[in-house]
């Protein structure tokens, strides 16, 4: 396989991977952020303490986290078909990717938010703040660096999952490595695909680390 043959494939694969990862991550944030925050708020000692709700969310998150992604993807085919109209292609892959990433991100959000000093929550309550004040003005801003670090981890995990989506016709770099590299014995192409994946993951990690550094700079004493 020549570079001229590889190039359009790699370009399309990268675009597909970024497309799947982008949308899935966005949905994972929209779903995982409130779930993660709720896990903290409804826990013992939280302002919305509610053992039943806490357990229920915990179970949903744990089930989502423990299912191997490839099983989740196959199991969700009917749902995907209902939502997207097809179970094949990058757009179809977004559905299981997002559903798999929501509990993943939710746990990371929970960990990040739990680290916020309880004294700050108490201070907000003492000022007359309610639960919304606590969440929007204390918990989320204070845990922002950890949340961004969690987001980085989630994006990278989704990129990894998206390679598996290739196995059921999802497209993307993973699919390329499988179909062209493995099944056609194009070891060279496999290596190039892997190199591109590593480059994408590294770029995401560097970007995330940079953002975390920027956000936490103000919290360190600079005097």
């Amino acid at each position, binding site marked *: 396989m020549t570079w001229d043959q590889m190039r359009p494939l790699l370009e399309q694969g990268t675009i597909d991977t970024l497309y799947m990862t982008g949308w899935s991550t966005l949905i994972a944030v929209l779903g995982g952020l409130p779930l993660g925050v709720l896990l903290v708020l409804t826990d013992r000692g939280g*302002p*919305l*303490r509610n053992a039943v709700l806490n357990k229920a969310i915990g179970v949903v998150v744990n089930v989502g986290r423990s299912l191997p992604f490839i099983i989740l993807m196959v199991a969700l085919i009917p749902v995907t078909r209902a939502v997207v109209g097809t179970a094949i292609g990058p757009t179809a892959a977004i559905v299981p990717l997002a559903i798999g990433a929501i509990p993943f991100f939710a746990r990371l959000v929970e960990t990040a938010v739990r680290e916020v*000093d309880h*004294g*700050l929550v*108490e*201070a*907000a*309550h*003492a*000022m*007359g*703040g*309610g*639960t919304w*004040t606590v969440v929007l*003005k*204390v918990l989320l*801003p*204070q845990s*922002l660096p950890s949340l961004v670090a969690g987001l980085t981890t989630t994006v990278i995990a989704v990129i990894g999952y998206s390679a598996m989506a290739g196995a059921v016709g999802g497209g993307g770099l993973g699919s390329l490595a499988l179909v062209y590299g493995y099944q056609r014995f194009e070891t060279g192409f496999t290596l190039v695909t892997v190199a591109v994946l590593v480059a994408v993951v590294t770029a995401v990690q560097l970007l995330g680390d940079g953002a975390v550094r920027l956000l936490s700079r*103000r*919290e*360190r*004493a*600079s*005097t």
Partner: protein
Amino acid sequence: MPAPGRAPPRAPAPDSDGIALITTSDLTKVYRSRGREVTALDGVDLHVRPGEVYGVIGRSGAGKSTLIRCLNLLERPTSGTVTVDGQDLTALAGRRAHRAGRPLREARTRIGMIFQHFNLLSSRTVQGNVELPLEILRLTRRERAAKALELLDLVGLADKARAYPAQLSGGQKQRVGIARALAGDPKVLLSDEATSALDPETTRSVLKLLRDLNQQLGLTVLLITHEMDVVKAVCDSAALMEAGRVVESGVVSELLATPGSRLAHELFPVGGALADDDRTVVDITFHGATAGQPVISQLARGHGLDVSILGAAMDTVGGRQVGRMRIELPGPVAANAAPLAFLREQGLTVELPGATAPAVELTGEGA
């Protein structure tokens, strides 16, 4: 250590229970965990008058932290009532166990609170921290900025508005905490060990600020502390807590004149051995005018006694010169009736440490 910047003391009316700004009655808090019950507050009655600085002192575990958290219902008392500025907060709390309803939240905006570890948001600037309560009060951006800068000016930090808390010293952080606590123009400021994380120098300057605010704004301050120096420096009244109960309370200057007062002993610990058969140990407390009198030398000359001073402490409490001294007179107590009577005549509080209270009285009467 003279109290910094003290104006002459305002003598609080001795009988003014009716106008208390903060009242707790029979306040009880019981924690239950895994079948075990811990009583943190055991029937606390507190009366804090408007415009005074009231100190609650006790060792850790005495329940003072729980007490101050019950005053703005951060902790829900098990029973009893809390009234602040005529409003029964326990009634406002509503039935929902842990969420504060709107009436309670509105009441809290009028009660400032400062904390041992400052509890500032590291993600916000100094000004942003002071604006947080103003956001809760739904002020506009412009109003918030103006009010925040005004408050920072009041605590002497106008130039730090754009700094982040991590760039400030402990004392500056507590000043930001104070500015933030004053955002809702509260009548009451609750101080939860606000100086316990600060060095002595910084403690003094923060206490001076609290005293200044108390006098300039008529702010009533209730503080809890485990440091006697804090009570000496700023408190008009004080309560001593032990095992969830208030064991002694009152106006500090009056407590000092009360024989057997635990707080007086804690404020002015005087060392030295106790009496035995051939000597008499006497604790005397000077206050007000007597603090300036040469009482001891008069005693020595007038009664021809060799007076030894075993220990002494002098200080300014509530703006008045106060001191305690432990002296030793030769001979047993019975032989010293005349000198003891002389000391009492001078308006001093005279106690015989180690002797039981009735015995002291009998000895005194026999003179």
